[in-house]
């Protein structure tokens, strides 16, 4: 680590965090949300404290009851003795930059339970159904000692699949009357579900959704070794069917662990992590070398009015970077 320890990250903060202070835990999450410059230092120190909590993504279209399912699943997991963190993501307004975070309204059963920590995150710059800080918040809660981390995405449509990159298991929540939505979802998020859950199963139309899903699974049946994902129904607001959901989650975790998939997911996350930091670093270096940002802004402005293509400029820029690099190597 070549970074100077930051003043914001006092030894007291870390000491309090290790001793189980919820204020310190919440603070670290905020710092990861607000201070990208502190990411390396914080995350480096969190790594040895992590114990491999299972990360469970809960995703699906808006209004299907993701928060209610999350809350009901939390209740089941608590009965079984697991401790949990819930990360609930709601969208940031692209106009004001503000966000209305309403998921806690559906999670009031767990107030005062020290085994549950609920944190709402605004999606901010994230466009894939999560906040960019989500995987880092999960690291904080893992290091804080939670067994399970439930990550509830914003209501998703077709391509908001960031959750895939930061969890071990995905529960895709759907509801009756969404047969057409399933058609629309087929290409994107339908492939993401490790467990399919039809919530609001006390409402009419459940069979139709089940039929559509079975039909989709059947299309994959010819693939060697294909096993269709578990398909469950529940009414999370009354708790009906939720103990089956919990048991299925436990079974899938056990299976993924046995098959080495949890380990593989962790490896993939680390690989992605390293790649992203290198990309960032290179971009940063490049900006320093050429002072490109103001130049790009200026060129874009000129091109906007001229109707010319940007590619000659891009080529010129590339050769300049090559020259800078050669110059670097010589000196």
């Amino acid at each position: 680590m070549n970074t100077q320890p930051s003043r914001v990250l006092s030894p007291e903060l870390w000491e309090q965090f290790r001793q189980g202070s919820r204020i310190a835990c919440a603070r670290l999450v905020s710092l990861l949300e607000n201070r990208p410059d502190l990411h390396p230092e914080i995350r480096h120190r969190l790594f040895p404290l992590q114990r491999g909590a299972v990360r469970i993504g809960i995703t699906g279209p808006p209004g299907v009851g993701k928060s209610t399912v999350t809350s009901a699943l939390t209740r089941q997991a608590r009965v079984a003795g697991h401790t949990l963190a819930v990360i609930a993501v709601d969208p940031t307004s692209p106009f004001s930059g503000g966000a209305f975070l309403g998921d806690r309204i559906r999670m009031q059963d767990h107030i005062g339970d020290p085994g549950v920590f609920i944190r709402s995150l605004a999606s901010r710059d994230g466009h894939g159904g999560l906040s960019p800080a989500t995987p880092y918040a999960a690291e904080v809660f893992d290091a804080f000692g939670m067994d399970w981390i439930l990550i509830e995405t914003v209501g998703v449509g077709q391509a908001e699949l960031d959750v895939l990159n930061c969890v071990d298991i995905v529960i895709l929540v759907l509801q009756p009357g969404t047969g057409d939505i399933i058609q629309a979802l087929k290409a994107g998020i339908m492939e993401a579900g490790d467990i399919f859950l039809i919530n609001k199963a006390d409402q009419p139309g459940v069979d139709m959704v089940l039929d559509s899903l079975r039909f989709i699974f059947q299309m994959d049946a010819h693939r060697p070794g294909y096993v269709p994902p578990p398909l469950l129904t529940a009414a999370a607001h009354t708790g009906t069917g939720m103990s089956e959901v919990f048991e299925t989650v436990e079974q899938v975790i056990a299976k993924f662990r046995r098959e080495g998939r949890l380990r593989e997911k962790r490896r993939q996350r680390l690989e992605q992590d390293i790649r992203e930091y290198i990309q960032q670093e290179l971009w940063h270096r490049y900006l320093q070398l050429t002072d490109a940002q103001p130049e790009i802004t200026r060129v874009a402005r000129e091109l906007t009015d001229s109707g010319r293509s940007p590619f000659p400029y891009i080529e010129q820029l590339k050769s300049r970077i090559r020259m800078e690099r050669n110059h670097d190597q010589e000196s």
Partner: protein
Amino acid sequence: MSGKKIKVVLAKPGLDGHDRGVKVIARSLVEHGMEVVYLGLQQTPEAIVNAAIEEDADVIGLSVLSGSHMTQFKRVRELMLEHGIGDRLLTGGGIIPDKDRDRLVELGIGRLFGPGADIDEIANYIKEWAESRSAGTAET
């Protein structure tokens, strides 16, 4: 859109079902670029302070139209101090007589707004408080 945003926990404590006002406030604070965690109706002071801790909220806003403002604001303030988040702003509004308002302010509670208060004024009050706080600590 990265960087520090003001985070506000908004709630209605006690047995008070009038939530139109607090929803209007929530909406307008979002329009002012804040991140608003809305807890809804019938919250206990314990639940509100617990949420503020977990959310690392800068501000707690209470809406009380039931006449129980003295009890509710006082209790939330006590719990904030007890749990070590006395450095956050407790503010709010409702039907609160001037003399009660003065007594609550003496207890370390921020400005309280009544019917007809200007929404932008509330947002600006919170923003100014947050600015003076971060100037004091030079933190996030």
